[in-house]
């Protein structure tokens, strides 16, 4: 490589389209959005204001209340996913990975169905099912003798966010299930047989042999869940609208940013405040990814088979 060679044009031709599209549509707008957060509009002209937008976002009581509300809701949303979606996915994968289980591929395909549906379908379908007007949910609780348990969960401030998070879990549990399933299948039989010789079988084999071996996959699922949740918007918008009702109880960063930069009923759109929120989202996602890359991934022991 030390001597000077003529430019190999075919390398340029192969790389150019992807690099151009990626740079122009993804990287430049990303940095432009970070830059726009430092401007504001005065008399239809763009003025540089430094960190004033962030001062408004964190300092103005109205803005900061909305921001912390959305951030807190977002963390709760993520927490429910980590608590329900990932353990459920691991459990389903553990059951499915039994080589003697019949119809495994049918179960796998059926459990993955919700993941392929759009948020619009998922949001409205659950809204209809949980609706007190239609009465599917109350009717089913009635047959179980629990009719008094029914509440319009999506309409109450206390339970709407948790309900939506569980709907999202229902939709996406297929992804952790598949990734863990793949990881479980890649564990060589010799290791499990060695465990059997030592008397480690059944549940013990899962906890003592398989779970430590799939920890790297669990790490990947956690970071995918984190990025996905802090970037979520569609389900809340489909089910509750841009106002993320009732009374902003289901507002997360995605809906907050949409309302701010695009505007809604009573408020004009403000691209600069929207950019400030996007910058905050970027920072949160970046911190999460860095914690994963430097704090978690490097400490997980990987086993080469």
């Amino acid at each position, binding site marked *: 490589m030390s001597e000077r060679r003529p430019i190999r044009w075919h390398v340029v031709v192969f790389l150019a389209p992807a690099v151009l599209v990626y740079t122009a549509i993804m990287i430049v707008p990303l940095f432009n959005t970070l830059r726009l957060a430092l401007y504001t509009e005065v008399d239809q002209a763009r003025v540089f204001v430094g960190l004033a937008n962030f001062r408004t976002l964190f300092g103005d009581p109205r803005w900061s209340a909305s921001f912390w509300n959305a951030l807190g809701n977002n963390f709760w949303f993520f927490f429910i996913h980590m608590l329900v979606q990932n353990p459920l996915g691991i459990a389903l994968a553990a059951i499915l990975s039994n080589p003697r289980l019949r119809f495994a591929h049918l179960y796998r395909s059926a459990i993955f169905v*919700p993941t392929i549906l759009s948020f619009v379908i998922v949001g*409205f379908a659950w809204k209809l099912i949980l609706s007190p007007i239609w009465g599917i949910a109350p009717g089913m609780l009635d047959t179980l003798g629990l009719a008094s348990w029914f509440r319009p969960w999506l309409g109450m401030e206390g339970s709407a966010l948790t309900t939506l998070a569980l709907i999202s879990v229902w939709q996406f549990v297929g992804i952790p299930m598949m990734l863990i399933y*793949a990881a479980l299948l890649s564990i060589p039989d010799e290791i499990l047989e060695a465990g059997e010789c030592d008397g480690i079988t059944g549940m013990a084999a899962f906890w003592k042999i398989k779970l430590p071996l799939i920890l790297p996959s669990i790490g990947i699922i956690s970071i995918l869940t984190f990025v996905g949740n802090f970037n979520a918007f*569609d389900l809340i918008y489909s089910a509750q609208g841009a106002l993320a009702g009732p009374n902003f109880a289901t507002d997360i960063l995605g809906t907050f940013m949409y309302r701010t930069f695009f505007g809604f009923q009573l408020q004009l759109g403000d691209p600069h405040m929207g950019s400030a929120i*996007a910058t905050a989202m970027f920072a949160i996602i970046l911190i999460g990814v860095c914690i994963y890359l430097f704090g978690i991934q490097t400490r997980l022991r990987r086993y080469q088979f």
Partner: protein
Amino acid sequence: MSAARRNPLNSAAAHAALLAYVAIALFPVFVIVINSFKDRRSIFREPLALPDAESFSLIGYQTVLKQGDFFLYFQNSFIVTVASLFFILLFGAMAAFALAEYRFRGNMLMGLYLALGIMIPIRIGTVAILEMMVATNLVNTLWALILVYTAQGLPLAVFILSEFMRQVSDDLKNAGRIDGLSEYTIFLRLVLPLVRPALATVAVFNMIPIWNDLWFPLILAPAEETKTLTLGSQVFIGQFVTDWNAVLSALSMAILPVMGLYVIFSRQLIRGITSGAVK
């Protein structure tokens, strides 16, 4: 697993647990689809009953087809998805080939640069993307969506495809070079056909998020003539909230094409996820 091998009770428990979860996973789809074929009275009186001769009705579908331009929405979604996939696969494969095949200064850096986008969602840049599309007069065109989805899909496509292209044998490519094939012919004729399974995996991975996306159609192409099926059903359902027949039929119509594609591609999709392409 060895316990299940010995104990039939355990395997019955496994089937019971899986069946219970499958019921939860499919129940909402089932309820929506059966009720879309019933008349209004039966939807409310017997929501869980299958449509019979008395309750069968297509009134919802008639409303949907009369009021909403679902064929246009479907066509838009189809064009956007197919065109985006085409560009993701073509540009992604070209860049992956350059990174996997040639040693040049900055190869590593270029790979890292392209991989950045795997972890950082493109939505963060929405404000500037919208401004750019307004400035270039691409708002409310399908091109705006195609460009955004192509940029969104490229990082993972390059990452997966270059992994696969490193496995293509050097002897084969060198044999081609000795026979006087140009680098372009080697890429098109020798390498691309060999990584076809990886191309299919990338296509299936990208297809569902593009088809189902609501954010970018809502912001970049909300006009009537560029609505995608996802946005179209969202708006339609919002307007017809009280017409239960129409809402249920619109939902069923949005479900059916995706289910059709899933039945065709599910093996490919599941093989793609489980082949460890995303590890």
